[in-house]
């Protein structure tokens, strides 16, 4: 492989590598006829990302005509080549990428201003091809939005947050943080954001579903989308099947495939429609926000209990059955109560489907023209076998 990237495209390439680094530790490089594919997958195989740069993206693009070339390398070392995006933009005029198959080396040469050359020789390993099995065109729900909208959305969630749940109706999308059922719900801050369909460029909902996926990879894609200004598309179906986030341009395409939590079909998130729209923002009825409390006044100095009173607990819903039973008298409580208890009785069902990848492993005798056999990857460490 021998290709040259010039001008602003160097930064685009760099951003793509940075956003792939949010996915996994290794970069899979595969020069194809239709362009250079850069891929990454996370260790649990629940997230996969691929950028395909069309030949037109490059000012020179030649690939070996005789055989398929495939390699992988530590993404950190490639990131190091493009470490400072700011100086990259100012100083680098072109980037030359060349393979040396005798020495198993991939060479990045940065041609900077004033004739300065920076050469990075990175050694690589041969690898199997990495391919996720997904079909975004068959997804029931399709959205497209400017990156700004999504950036403004995810900024409401703390950086430490792992997963978000996206629910859709025909006119709205709700995004809220997913709290592990094992985690202490009473301590977690819950954030929910509601977006109207007309904030999107494209909004088609055929299935009113909720899916839960990792936020980290979405942030990774947004890093790329924001700097290139490309709109982000989102495709998803039902809980358990992957959500596909993509960016497309005439010379490049990026797809991020993220596993979603497979929900128990009885689980609330899967069957109940999204929460009622908070339309009442301006005129909510204060009476519905009451918190009952006991106000017994004990003799002052003797009260030495910790300031986390049982009182607060009694407004929470995790109660012994007896307490629940007594509260059944109050119809309004009851509904909420049952909802919550039903929920907590369920075994934890947090399980990302990590089996959605097929791995394509061309044997040495096969040429690229031959059909390739696809196999399911079942174990997370299969990439180490080659």
């Amino acid at each position, binding site marked *: 492989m021998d290709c040259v990237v010039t001008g602003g495209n160097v930064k685009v390439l760099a951003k793509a590598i940075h956003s792939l680094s949010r996915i996994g530790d290794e970069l899979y490089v595969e020069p194809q006829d239709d362009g250079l594919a850069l891929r990454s997958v996370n260790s649990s195989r629940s997230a996969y990302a691929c950028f395909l740069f069309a030949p037109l993206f490059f000012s020179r693009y030649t690939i070996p005509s005789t055989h398929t070339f495939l390699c992988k390398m530590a993404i950190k070392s490639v990131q190091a080549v493009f470490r400072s995006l700011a100086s990259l933009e100012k100083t680098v005029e072109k980037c030359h990428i060349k393979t040396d198959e005798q020495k198993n080396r991939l060479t990045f040469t940065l041609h900077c201003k004033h004739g300065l050359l920076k050469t990075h020789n990175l050694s690589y390993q041969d690898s199997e091809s990495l391919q996720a099995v997904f079909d975004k065109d068959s997804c029931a729900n399709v959205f497209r939005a400017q990156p700004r909208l999504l950036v403004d959305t995810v900024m409401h969630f703390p950086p430490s947050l792992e997963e978000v749940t996206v629910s859709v109706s025909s006119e709205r999308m709700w995004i809220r943080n997913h709290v592990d059922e094992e985690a202490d719900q009473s301590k977690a801050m819950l954030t929910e954001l509601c977006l109207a369909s007309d904030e999107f460029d494209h909004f088609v909902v055929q299935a009113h579903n909720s899916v839960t996926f990792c936020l980290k990879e979405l942030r990774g894609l947004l890093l790329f989308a924001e700097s290139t200004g490309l709109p982000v598309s989102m495709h998803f179906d039902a809980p358990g099947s992957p959500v596909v986030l993509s960016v497309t341009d005439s010379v490049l395409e990026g797809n991020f495939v993220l596993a979603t939590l497979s929900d128990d079909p009885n689980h609330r998130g899967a069957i109940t429609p999204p929460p009622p729209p908070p339309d009442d923002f301006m005129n909510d009825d204060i009476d519905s926000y009451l918190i009952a409390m006991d106000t017994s006044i004990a003799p002052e100095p003797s009260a030495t209990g910790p300031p986390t009173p049982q009182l607060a607990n009694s407004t929470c819903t995790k109660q012994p059955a007896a307490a629940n039973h007594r*509260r059944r008298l109050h119809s309004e409580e009851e509904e909420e109560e049952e909802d919550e208890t039903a929920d907590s009785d369920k075994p934890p069902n947090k399980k990302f489907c990590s089996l959605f990848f097929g791995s394509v492993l061309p044997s040495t005798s096969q040429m690229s023209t031959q059909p390739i056999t696809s196999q399911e990857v079942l174990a997370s460490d299969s990439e180490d076998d080659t």
Partner: protein
Amino acid sequence: MGRILLRGGPNKLPPPDKTKERKHRMKFRAKIIDFACLSHFSRVITTISKLTKTCVLRLTPDNLFFVLCGKVANGGVSMWCELSQANFFDEYQMEGVSSEDNEICLEVTPDNLSRALKTVQNAKSVKVKLTKKHCPCLTIAAELPTLSSISRVVTHDVPVDVIPRRLWHEFKEPSMPDFDVSIYLPPLKTMKNVVDRMKNLSNFLVIEANLNGEMNLKIETDLVSVSTHFKDLGNPPWGDDASQLGRPSQSRDPEDMAEARVDIRKLQQFLMGQQVNPSKAMCNIIHQTVIHLILLHEDMSLQYFIPAVA
């Protein structure tokens, strides 16, 4: 509406005197529209979040108080921050536990509130209300500007603990200590720069001041002694009406220093976190007992007590 909750499981607490036990409801809802008020409120909360992980929020018809009691677990520091609601909120409705105790007392995590408020800085309006979700929450709901005809609404439910009436007495305003010396502080940035550097050398700092407007910050270790001198700082005129009658400072030699040795991290925390640009900052020292830092702003005041260590 039958929203009265019965007490939970059987062996929770010694059963309270049934005749005294009353059930009440509380309401709280407030709204900020003004951008400057919102960012000011957010800065105050952020300042508090830098001082403590959890604190108590007392809501009264006129004020909000953030209170931290001096417990051993938090190094003995205590805090009292007072905001006048009218200066922050465009709407403010509250109903306390009863007409004679018209207050609401909550244990909150200021960091959560701060994070929630930071993300809604450019909101058209922000509401803060007490809600019953999966647990009692302070819900921060913001209406964000969009190009769409429908507003973008974000809600943050910050879990809180409701503090029962019988524990309220722990969260009273601290009385003004009978200090030996009261002095205005130099610009807090300057002070922070000094303390930051001293922190690299020692864990403890001696702060001393006199009634002649002089203050020294000192560290002493086996290897090095450093002191920074400030002069002409001025001493606040705590008049006769300040009920400081008979305090020692009235007959005190102006040159005589009162000093306290404090945990330098606590002082640094105070200087680092503060984002409110106070119109006045002062420090009261009770010789070898406590320092009492006060930040005054037109619509808020923050008091912070750091105990002296031997």
